[in-house]
């Protein structure tokens, strides 16, 4: 079965002594039957977005095969300034990066940072997709800046369901992941507000793939693991 995971990371884990090297992450993805993984570089998150973006592109190129496709995810840090962010994003598009993950909480920038007003529309115009995990108000700010045409993949926390179901469901380009919808029947609850838009992400190796997978009813699996992701994959130019 086709199985798309929008959040897998690799590299070195500086904040906790954990294995996160690519071979280990790949083994976890393969063991769970993931066939498409959007791959994020921890070097890009924690140290240098430019170097991380270049590395993730090579890792994806060298390791994609018949069984599993790795899609590179790039990032940039608004704190580095607009000139460098534009250079990084342009270089990323040249390398084939179309998925761009923002880390407002980890990199400590505000969701309304003015650099985003310049860079996110550029990503949208170039056919990119944005990924971000943040509180719903921050996600709403980012989706407004990115515009209606740019899909946005996010992980919404079950605990804040009463907030995001009203705040984010009006945006047809928001695709929530089931990763943190761990409450009883909360995937069903989210599906009411985001019909045909719930997708899958695991945050492997920091999260177990089988945890969010275990929340899905058999009749939801095909939709959430692949069908709902199809429009995003098409925009990323990966017709799996």
């Amino acid at each position, binding site marked *: 079965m086709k199985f798309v995971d929008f959040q897998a990371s690799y590299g070195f884990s500086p904040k*906790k*002594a*954990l*294995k996160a090297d690519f071979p280990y992450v790949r083994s*976890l993805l393969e*063991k*769970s039957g993931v066939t498409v993984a959007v791959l994020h570089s921890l070097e890009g998150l924690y140290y240098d977005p430019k170097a991380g973006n270049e590395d993730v592109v090579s890792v994806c190129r060298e390791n994609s095969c018949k069984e599993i496709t790795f899609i590179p995810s790039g990032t940039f840090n608004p704190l580095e300034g607009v000139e460098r962010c534009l250079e990084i994003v342009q270089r990323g598009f040249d390398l084939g990066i179309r998925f761009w993950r923002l880390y407002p909480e980890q990199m400590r920038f505000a969701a309304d940072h003015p650099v985003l007003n310049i860079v996110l529309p550029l990503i949208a115009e170039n056919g990119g997709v944005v990924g971000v995990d943040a509180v719903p108000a921050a996600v709403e700010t980012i989706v407004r800046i990115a515009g209606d045409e740019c899909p946005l993949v996010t992980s919404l*926390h*079950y*605990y804040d*369901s*009463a907030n995001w*179901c009203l705040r984010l469901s009006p945006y047809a380009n928001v695709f929530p992941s089931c990763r*943190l919808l*761990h*409450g*009883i*029947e*909360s995937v069903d*609850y989210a599906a009411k507000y985001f019909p045909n838009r719930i997708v899958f992400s695991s945050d492997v*190796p*920091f*999260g*177990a*793939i*089988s*945890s*969010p*997978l*275990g*929340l899905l009813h058999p009749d939801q699996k095909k939709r959430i693991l692949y069908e709902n992701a199809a429009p995003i994959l098409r925009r990323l130019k990966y017709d799996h």
Partner: protein
Amino acid sequence: MIIDIHGHLGRWYFPTVDVTAMMAERALAENGVDMLLVSSSYALRYDLVEGNRRLAQSIRGSDRIKGYVVLNPNYPDLSLKEMEKYADNPDFVGFKIHPEIFHHRLDTPQGMVLCEAIAESKKPLLIHTFGSSMETPLQVVKPIETYPSMKIILAHSGGYDWNLANDIASLSPNLYSEICCTCTCVQKIENLIEGFGEDRVMFGSDFSLFDEAYSLGMAKDADLTPTQRRKLMGDNAAKLFGFCTSEE
């Protein structure tokens, strides 16, 4: 045999269902879990006496659902009376304290009064632990050193900060670890088994706040030997709480 040692009955402040004992039994059957140990969310969030009473009523005579008596260190005298009230009730197998909800750590003078009574009772205490100073696993150090026979289970094992739980694992053979958390990193289970040893780590889910399937998925993905898995999923809990093990 699968024993889920961390569950609740009652309402939460999220858009979720108000889980009754009957609904919990159905969830256990769906998830292939044999037993569930629960505390009352009413007692944890509001009134311990009424919450414990409601739980006693809900689980009376159940073979599959057993209870923790909730104790609140803000009310040591009331808590001691609750301990006495349910001391001989076979439906209750331990105690539950939530320092973050009660805004009261275990290692305060009032908390230590309860620790003395818990140690005497010989029943385990399940204490919520996470990363903040109010929830830190380190608050059990003083109780363990003062009452070495006290059995303590670190619910969540410090959450994302399970290294703090591991740091104190060697303090006492009566200190146990429970795995559940929003963080489902499989290396958490593997690390805790390294730190506590395979006989002192137990499966829990935080049902009904969490679907049991979430924690079951985490356990499924962990790289464990068959023996480690059997012990994690039920045998360690069976031994600690005096239930039959899968070998019996």
